[in-house]
């Protein structure tokens, strides 16, 4: 019985909690990708770097606040700075739309052209971020490090395994839940939200109903700015901030959006967790967990790590390919790619 509990604690500590936090970050990122796909009708490759930009502004404002001595006590100061990150990202996205995407929209450019255009935007944004904050790792988390640390947990429960729950993980999960709740309330209950869904569903009929496409596009970018900056800042807070990491995040984020069904917000969330749990579970050495669960004779003498963490992106990639082969519209019914 104690063995079972210990196994559960090890699994929670190294797999469940990290995957839950990572999944929340992916879900927020994938929601942005899926909204752009549904309404602007292209895959936005610049999304990862949009997240990096939002995170960068959040970091700069955090440092400013820390310099002024403003803090949130046990919570990271970055939470206060996220709204500024969102505002700056909104300005960046609206400017990009005005300067770049609007031109191609008026030309009624094919989606594949917009994808290539977004790659160009990606490189520019990536350069912008590295130019401002540099290519290196940045730490900006402060406040209490743990909601519960491994040592406290051991003392509390008397188990031989510890469970650590980081403040950043808790904040990530709670924030994601709040953001998703607001987003779904907006999309399903407000006039503007419904008009966005209508526009995504049937553009011609939306125009015939008098829905203003420019307004829908603008509101979409604003929401995407909120999602991207929040996701980027939370990821940076939980792991660490490095501009290139966000470029690499693009793959699991797209995998999440496609797995869930492109254009379907509910799917993006489900997809985010599917990718996160698969990635963490497959790259985690299960030796310890199995050691507790199996009788001594069967105790594995290898790590039982299915895949080295260096190859974690292969997991997203494999899931992406499997889904595209067998269920191109995703788990929830989205648009086929």
């Amino acid at each position, binding site marked *: 019985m104690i063995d079972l509990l210990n196994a559960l604690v090890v699994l929670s500590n190294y797999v469940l909690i990290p995957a839950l936090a990572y999944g929340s970050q992916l879900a927020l990122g994938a929601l942005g990708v899926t909204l752009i796909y549904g309404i602007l009708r292209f895959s936005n490759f610049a999304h990862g770097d949009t997240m990096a930009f939002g995170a960068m502004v959040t970091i700069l404002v955090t440092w400013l606040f820390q310099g002024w001595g403003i803090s949130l006590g046990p919570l990271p100061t970055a939470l206060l700075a996220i709204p500024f990150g969102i505002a700056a990202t909104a300005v960046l996205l609206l400017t990009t739309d005005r300067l770049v995407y609007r031109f191609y929209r008026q030309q009624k450019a094919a989606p594949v052209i917009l994808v290539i255009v977004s790659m160009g935007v990606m490189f520019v944004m990536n350069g912008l971020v590295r130019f401002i904050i540099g290519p290196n790792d940045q730490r900006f988390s402060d406040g209490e490090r743990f909601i519960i640390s491994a040592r406290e947990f051991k003392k509390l429960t008397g188990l031989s395994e510890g469970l650590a729950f980081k403040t950043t993980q808790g904040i990530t999960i709670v924030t994601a839940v709040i953001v998703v709740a607001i987003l779904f309330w907006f999309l399903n209950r407000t006039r503007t939200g*419904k008009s966005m*869904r*209508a526009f995504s*569903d049937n553009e011609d*009929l*939306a*125009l*015939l*109903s*008098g829905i203003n496409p420019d307004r829908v596009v603008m509101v979409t970018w604003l929401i995407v700015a909120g999602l991207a900056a929040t996701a980027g800042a939370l990821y940076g807070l939980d792991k660490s901030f490095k501009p290139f990491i966000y470029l690499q995040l693009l793959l699991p984020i797209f995998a999440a959006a496609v797995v869930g069904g492109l254009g379907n917000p509910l799917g993006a969330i489900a997809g985010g967790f599917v990718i996160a749990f698969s990635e963490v579970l497959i790259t985690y050495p299960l030796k310890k967990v199995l050691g507790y669960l199996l009788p001594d004779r069967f105790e594995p003498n290898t790590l039982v790590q299915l895949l080295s963490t260096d190859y974690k992106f292969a997991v997203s990639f494999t899931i992406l390919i499997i889904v595209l082969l067998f269920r191109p519209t995703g788990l929830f019914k989205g648009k086929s790619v």
Partner: protein
Amino acid sequence: MTEPFLIGDAMTGGYGRGADILHDCTIAVNPGEIAVIVGPNGAGKSTAMKAVFGMLNIHKGSVRLDGEEITHLSPQDRVAKGMAFVPQTSNIFTSLTVEENLEMGAFLRRDDIRVTMEQIYDLFPILRDKRKQAAGELSGGQRQQVAVGRALMTQPKVLMLDEPTAGVSPIVMDELFDRIIEVARKGISILMVEQNARQALQIADRGYVLVQGANRFTDTGAALLADPDVRKSFLGG
């Protein structure tokens, strides 16, 4: 002769820069009337109606609504002027509920839309029962009701229907025609393109038989049905 409420007068034009599809084609309708456009495949029936709604380039002739020249207005602006259009396909928001479809139809209105919505539920009682259901889950006939309902939410003066009975069963078709007559009785002008010529002409105040983008016969629905030439060429004897 007084000017009709809505008239597409001697329209000549086509899609984009392509060849002309319509040649001197005239379509008109008065308040409370049902005007039906019939004709063989490829006669330009839908095209004539889309021309009236501003979806193609007319380089000769004009469109006037209540005496006002609207030839160069965009379809969206015509919606604001009181014209409503139900396309033949993709005419509902499939992922939205029935009620949300109706709300979107009234997107331009800033006043209370609940009275209009109740009227539409009275007209199509089945939609009241299904109002929380996604419109894409409904049957063909119910989808057409949603489509017509969405268009009526703007409280239009003219309702334009592109083959409203395409792909529905004969019973549903009769039912839809009854509803359309009911809408016309409220004083709304109805302009309709129909594949089922005989049934459509039976309810038509005016009928237009188009051939190759030009008016061939124009008369009341009953007169066209009685005309031996029309019967022989278009109604199968």
